[in-house]
């Protein structure tokens, strides 16, 4: 007998309409509203043991406190599966359902599922981490949505494999999972090409992301007064790699003293980069980061000063999230130190 806890707002919880949207979190034994439908669908396979409820305004204004209170209520009761909503196209309710589904799943470790109309703002906020069954935009869609939510929930509870979004009826979570296709990639490529050549509809297996095109910054206006920093994605680190900069797919960056590199060169520094043949750099790091030339130019007065630290990470198939973060952190550090220009070397 599956024990379900169900989340609803004040409206579906039959407390009242917009005038009751401020009610704080509460728990009710047994099913309320759509929970009765859950019991009817499940028959003797399971039942709603409790309904947790919160007003939409209260939840959106006090999200942390409200969700924590609800989480405590859920955690205090025996529960096999958490179901939230469905919220259809109700925005505040959708966000509450998304937040509760995510927290119950991640923090209580319970299988959890909700349902929303694709344009509900809760979808974009929560789709990545949770299962959201696609519903119509009003409660008319309840009889269609609830059986799908229950079916998916039961299979999550049973740790059964979950198929793709189309087959299961959930909104794509932005996750791509490795699977074995019935045909080899080469066969599929020929199939796809023949379709494209014939002008019949075809579907690509990879949708390319929009590329960030970075326009070059304007030239440094006053080079003679400029502080120039050296930055590289070439993985140049002290031999013992004290900051554990990854050799590929980096999540970290570090800074080291230019003076140390100038004084000790290949004796104490090496590239841990896995995306190019590092032999020549490891013979002479100036080939990656031209400290020798920059010191000459500094002496000749071409620019005012060389920034005393160089910043380094490894640029090999870095995830976009990490690449953006590393770039931001490096830029912040250099901007705070009033660096006017950067020589960024890439491999």
């Amino acid at each position, binding site marked *: 007998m599956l024990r379900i806890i169900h989340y609803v707002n004040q409206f579906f919880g039959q407390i009242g309409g917009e005038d009751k949207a401020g009610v704080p979190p509460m728990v009710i034994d047994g099913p309320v509203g759509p929970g009765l439908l859950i019991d009817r669908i499940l028959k003797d396979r399971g039942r709603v043991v409790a309904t947790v409820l919160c007003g939409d305004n209260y939840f959106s204004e006090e999200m942390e406190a409200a969700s924590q209170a609800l989480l405590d209520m859920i955690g205090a009761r025996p529960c096999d599966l958490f179901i939230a909503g469905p919220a259809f196209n109700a925005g505040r309710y959708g966000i509450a359902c998304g937040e509760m589904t995510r927290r119950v799943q991640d923090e209580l470790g319970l299988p959890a599922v909700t349902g929303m109309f694709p344009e509900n703002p809760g979808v974009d906020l929560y789709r990545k981490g949770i299962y959201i069954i696609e519903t119509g935009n009003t409660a008319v869609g309840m009889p269609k949505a609830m059986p799908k939510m229950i079916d998916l929930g039961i299979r999550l509870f049973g740790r059964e494999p979950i198929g793709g979004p189309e087959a299961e009826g959930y909104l794509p979570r932005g996750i*791509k999972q490795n699977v074995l296709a019935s045909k080899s990639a080469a066969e599929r490529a020929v199939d796809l090409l*023949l379709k494209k050549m014939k002008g019949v509809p075809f579907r690509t297996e990879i949708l390319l992301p929009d*590329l960030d095109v970075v326009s070059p910054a304007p030239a440094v206006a006053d080079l003679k007064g400029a502080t120039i920093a050296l930055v590289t994605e070439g993985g140049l680190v002290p031999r013992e790699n004290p900051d554990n900069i990854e050799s590929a797919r980096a999540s970290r960056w570090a800074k080291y003293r230019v003076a140390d590199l100038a004084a000790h060169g290949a004796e104490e520094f090496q590239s841990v980069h896995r995306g190019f043949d590092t032999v020549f750099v490891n013979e002479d790091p100036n080939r990656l980061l031209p400290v020798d030339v920059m010191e000459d130019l500094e002496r000749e007065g071409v620019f005012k000063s060389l920034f005393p630290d160089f910043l380094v990470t490894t640029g090999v*198939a870095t995830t976009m999230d990490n690449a953006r973060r590393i770039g931001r952190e490096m830029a912040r550090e250099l901007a705070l130190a009033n660096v006017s220009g950067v020589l960024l070397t890439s491999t």
Partner: protein
Amino acid sequence: MKFEMEYFDVREIRFSEKTRFSDGLLSIDKNELIRQLSSDDRIAVIDIELVRPGENARITNVLDIIEPRIKTGVESYFPGMLRWPGPSGEGVTRVLRGATVFEIGAAQGFIGGLVDMDGNGAPLTPYSKTHNVCLLTAPGAGTSLVEYGLALKQAGCKASVYLAAATKGVTPDEAQIFDLDLGKQETSLPRVGYLFQLHSHGDSREPFVYGDNSRHYYPTILHPNEILDGAIVCGHYNLSVAIKNYTYSLLNHPVVAGLYKRHGKELCFGGVVITPEPTSMTDIKRTSMMAANLLKNVLHVDGVILTKEGGGHTDVDLMQNCDECEKLGIRTVLVDNEWLGPDGAGEMPLLAGSDNADAMVSVGNIDAVVDLLPMGRIVGGRAMHDFPGPLDGQLRMPLRFLATAISQIGSNHLTTEGR
């Protein structure tokens, strides 16, 4: 151009007093094979081990995999590597089907992978179903990495020919004729070509075409037979194992073989252009322009399949080639792997894209994590590049450490599906 492939199906392998092939049993005189490979002091062949299909075994430090083959008459193979003069793609080639030679070795700067014959890893590689003759090697004293790689390639090729020689005088299980005239063919079928990108980023990071490094080539037309008959072999020893094409997969090239199979039925196979993946933008633009021109105005194809070899940089080549082909009116399909993080939720880090790349085939998320079961037998060493070991226990690792799980030329069935 026409040649015949004779297949000899290997159903069992074992060490024996004498190397011979009979009734599906490949018997190998281990000492003689080691002797055959020991004349080169750049490499030491320490031992040879046999690993069977589905065995509870893990093969580590895998650098290349070769299918045993020999050309009847010359009694050698791999033109430009072991014999001269070429060409390949004519005459009769004898193949020990179902058997392989594994090149195995560990050295700082070499990147080897892992092949599981059993458990979760087995369905991810075609070589869990083959009889694998594993050459365990070490570099000779004072040998550079590049020279060790070259010597290991020689050893792998020689071992392949040595084993295939045992089929002399034996009746093949099956024979297949590869006969294709690339001249003007009167047909209403769509004319399809293949643009084959070869990694060309320096020694130990590129394949050999007729014995020469891919970086020495401009876009060149090869007859499909030349590829299926040993003109290209893998030469990568210092390239991540998931983003290189192994010799076995080149000899059984799935795109070339697939287009051959459908030739005259659903399409007309218009030929193959091989092209390097240069390291400068100027060279990439030059080669992509030349490759597209060969496809359009020499091979006269209307559609082309593009595959790449290598990491993120080579997406630049892929997109440039795609754009140049589409510009000339050639419809394109691109085959690529994805980099989506361990959970498949990451955004693909792409150095180049194109609006023309609207038809792509995925060979899988290279970052996906796989759980591998402990294996009773380890062949190739208990530690590996980036993995201090021990490697015999339960392992959790990204797919990119499994040799042959990702096939950029599309040998495998792996793909990604939205979740």
